């Protein structure tokens, strides 16, 4: 019948194949890094945007929202929220959240942000919106 099937050959192929495909992945990642500056708008990152990203993180926004589609699916996508609400609208929405929620409905917590913090968050969200993410999401509703 068919040829032999040996463990040592299977093992060698496992090691060789893994190394091979990992190297290929590294090569693609390397190319990605050379292309990213054209897409991720890193030249525009200001300290304010960095502060906004930090606020985004330490308040665990990703625990309810998605950002470029990644996160939790409990609340709307925020990568394009500035398109939906505008800068001022976004700030007003965050500020207006009732402390004890809305009876029977989902509501965002009241985070008591200062004006500077709100500006930083919006700057960050505007920055995310400016990233070239291949035209995602499909429409403004996110």
């Amino acid at each position: 019948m068919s040829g032999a099937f040996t463990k040592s050959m299977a093992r060698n192929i496992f090691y060789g194949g893994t190394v091979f495909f990992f190297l290929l992945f590294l090569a693609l990642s390397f190319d990605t890094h050379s292309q990213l500056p054209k897409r991720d708008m890193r030249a525009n990152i200001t300290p304010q945007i960095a502060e906004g990203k930090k606020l985004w993180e330490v308040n665990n926004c990703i625990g309810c929202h998605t950002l470029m589609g990644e996160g939790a699916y409990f609340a709307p996508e925020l990568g394009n929220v500035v398109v939906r609400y505008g800068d001022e609208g976004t700030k007003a929405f965050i500020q207006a959240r009732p402390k004890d929620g809305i009876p029977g409905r989902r509501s965002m917590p009241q985070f008591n942000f200062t004006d500077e913090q709100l500006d930083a968050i919006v700057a960050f969200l505007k920055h995310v919106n400016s990233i070239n993410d291949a035209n995602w999401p499909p429409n403004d509703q996110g």
Partner: protein
Amino acid sequence: MCAMTAIAPTAPETPARRLPGDLAIWFFILAEMLAFAVFFSAYAFARATHVAEFNLYQQTLDRNLGALNTVLLITGSWFVVLAVQAAHRDDRPAIPRNILLGFLCGAGFLAVKVVEYAAKFGAGISMSTNTFYMFYISLTFFHFMHVILGMVILAILWVQARKGVYGSHDAHGLESGAAYWHMVDLLWIVLFPLVYVMR
């Protein structure tokens, strides 16, 4: 239609229906060929929606170098077949010699490809230039990596062959490596007309 016409005088007396090499390498070959099959079809179907673009930029590829590379790979494959045949008739010195010749053909392929890439990259072309170049670079580079892997395998076979591991008593490893090298050839045989010529 092709059953008995192919028995060569040097062919080993194989028991009927034998798969050369190790089953494990054939699984690997199959998986790789599947990945390429999907990639080839992706190229063809992407082209169907960008015909003008593909036809235009295909003209910028160097068909002469592509054809030269086909010849190199076919010849490299042929040498490795000769190495396997030499093992089956216990012609010990001919085994590493033919493997080495096959390896050199591979090296020639890489050199030609580097010349080709240098011209393209020098002109500022990258995977992000357009869909055609994305496929051209992806497919040929993916294949390029396989040629390198094939050459690594040939190098190991060469060392083993010089130690006298292979012969009519045991050509298991040699046949497995050879099968992989032929796969590299087979893939290019589809890739070359598809990307360089067909329009």
